[in-house]
């Protein structure tokens, strides 16, 4: 099938993808005083704000076993930021790269993938802050749990790239998808247990939350990083993993089908 031949070609573009990710990262903070430091600074500020709000402004809003609450939220918000900004940026990436698609023979799928990967690097750059706070609060993170971490990242990566391909291809045809998406992502954020723990969600809503793939990805992060004890969320994660591969393939298929229209529509 043509789609799979194209998919295989994706591997050949790894040099190009790598170069473009580096370019993206370099360009993003070029000309700003703090440069790459922003990648640390943004999540750090976020964490400090949450800490302030939940220990000074609204203490006692959460059960005592969830202390420190800001750290709990941070475990989810950091990977969510990667997910959300990847989707939002990828909706614009083909249009912004219109020159490449129209004027150069350029594999268009590289653009949304680069967006997702660049945001992943930002996510990684935020991790030291998380680790520092984990150490500060003396959370115990087992070796086995740490090994699970890259697995979760891979699942999220496949899921995000699949959606990003889908979104970027459709935005070419429907420009307002961008605005729609911003609202949708906001809604999705609250429909995912990130700023509240799953067990505090209303029981009759639990099935709904469980249908959301991001719930399981986020809960896995929380299990690994925040909660004590062995992981305990492998099964749903495995299912989401399979789903992510399906999402990736469907996303790529849709992208591939619409590919020929890009040069004319962008």
């Amino acid at each position, binding site marked *: 099938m043509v789609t799979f031949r194209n998919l295989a070609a994706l591997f050949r573009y790894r*040099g*190009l993808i790598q*170069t*473009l990710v580096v*370019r993206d990262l*370099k*360009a993003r903070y*070029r*000309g700003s005083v703090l440069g790459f430091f922003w990648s640390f600074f943004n999540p750090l500020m976020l964490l400090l704000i949450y800490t302030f709000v939940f220990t000074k402004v609204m203490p006692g809003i959460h059960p005592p076993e969830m202390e420190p609450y800001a750290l709990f939220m941070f475990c989810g918000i950091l990977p969510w930021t990667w997910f959300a900004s990847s989707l939002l940026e990828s909706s614009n990436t083909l249009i912004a*790269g219109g*020159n*490449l*698609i*129209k*004027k*150069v*023979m*350029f594999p268009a799928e590289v653009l949304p993938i680069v967006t997702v990967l660049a945001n992943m690097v930002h996510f990684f750059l935020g991790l030291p802050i998380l680790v520092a706070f984990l150490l500060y609060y003396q959370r115990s993170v087992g070796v086995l749990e740490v090994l699970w971490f890259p697995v979760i990242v891979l699942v999220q990566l496949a899921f995000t790239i699949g959606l990003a391909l889908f979104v970027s291809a*459709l935005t070419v*045809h*429907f*420009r*307002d*998808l961008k605005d*729609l998406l911003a609202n949708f992502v906001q809604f999705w954020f609250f429909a995912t247990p990130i700023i509240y723990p799953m067990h505090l969600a209303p029981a009759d809503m639990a099935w709904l939350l469980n249908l959301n793939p991001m719930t399981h990805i986020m809960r896995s992060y929380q299990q690994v990083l925040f909660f004590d004890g062995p992981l305990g969320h492998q099964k749903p994660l495995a299912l989401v993993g399979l789903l992510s591969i399906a999402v990736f393939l469907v996303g790529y298929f849709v992208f591939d089908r619409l590919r*020929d229209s890009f*040069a*004319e*529509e962008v």
Partner: protein
Amino acid sequence: MTPAIDVINVSKVYRRYARKRQFATLKSAILDGSLLADLKPDETFQALRNVSFSVPKGCTYGVIGSNGSGKSTLLKCVAGITRPTEGDVKVDGRISALIELGAGFHPEISGRENIFINGIMLGLTKKEIQHRFDEIVEFAEMQDFIDAPVKTYSSGMYMRLGFAVAVHVDPEVLLVDEVLAVGDQSFTHKCLDKFAEFRRRNKSILLVTHSLDLVEKFCDVAHWLNKGVTKGEGDPKRVVAAYVMDVEDVEENTLAKAEAVRVAASAKEISTANAPDDTGANVGANFGSPGVETGEGPAAEEGPRDGFKSEEGRWGTREVEITNVTISGPNGDAGHVFQSGESIQVRMDVTSKEKITDFVFGLGLFNADNVCVYGTNTNLEEFQPTEIDGSAIVTFTIDKLDLVEGTYRLDLAAHKADGYPYDYHRLLYTFRVKSRIRDVGIYRPDHSWSFEGGIKFSDQR
């Protein structure tokens, strides 16, 4: 030997949508329930129709044609940017397309980094770029600025760098879309030299251009597209000549159509004797009297036609009427496009309802800037009018149309010796003068060059 480029029966259909695409949104699509309908084209536009050709290795192949003839679409199909709707394109070897120079340069990062990224996009490896880096920078004449961010570059620098990277990809097939205007003279020469080098190394070039000179001088084969259809292919001189002829025909038709509309419109205007009055009315007479240049007298302000200086129109009593005007070339055929140096005739069919004894026929010739190139009339040239009655023919002949290339317009008039207009045709007639020589000015005196002593020219082109 397989050809470098093989284009087989290529057709390209663009889809057009009834609604403006920018306003077709997902929201409206869902609200109207027209999601699927919106993805379907309402209309199609055929940009290319069954175009076939092949470019052998080492051949420089030029594609010419007027705007919208499908040249760029063809190039995009060959480059693989768009896929042909029907047919097949086969390219043997690495392609580099000079379609948009510097596409993909990121403004925030340095020229150095952009060279690498651009090179990788064009299919080079890091090592290959490293190897050619100095050559690229030198070719682009960018040694001093290579580490500055690209956003600080002038557009010329940007283009030069883009060009330099693209030609140093070392393609087997180079696609060029009208990009030779990227730099100053010396850079253009450098580009041409680079193309010549490509030819020597048996690489193929597909060139899309409006510069017919370039095609004649440079290409082995020319291909003429018109509205997506091949109109001719073969020896560049022959194809270019055929193309130029066709362009003249088209211009001829548009000029003729526009003129017909103007004349028809002006004929409908109510002819009143007092309309635009004397000053402007007597073309020829005015040129005799100093200070009254083309309607700068009082008439221009007080007359009903304020802006009459440049406005076309027709007025007069029609006691003597110019019923028909034809301009014809040396072979006697009426036309609107003439070669510089040919003879032309302006023929006026005139009628008068009764016997008239006071009449002057005049003619004024204006260029596109509305400068009067020449004006005269029968009175100035001392023809004594005796009488005109019934129909007659007045012919004005220019033996040698010594004008530079451009568009010219004519005033034709019949009036009394004192300027009282019978029938005044202001700027109603247009013709184009074509010339092989790109000289400038408003008038080409009969001239020649001669050289003596230690001076030499090689043969003229």
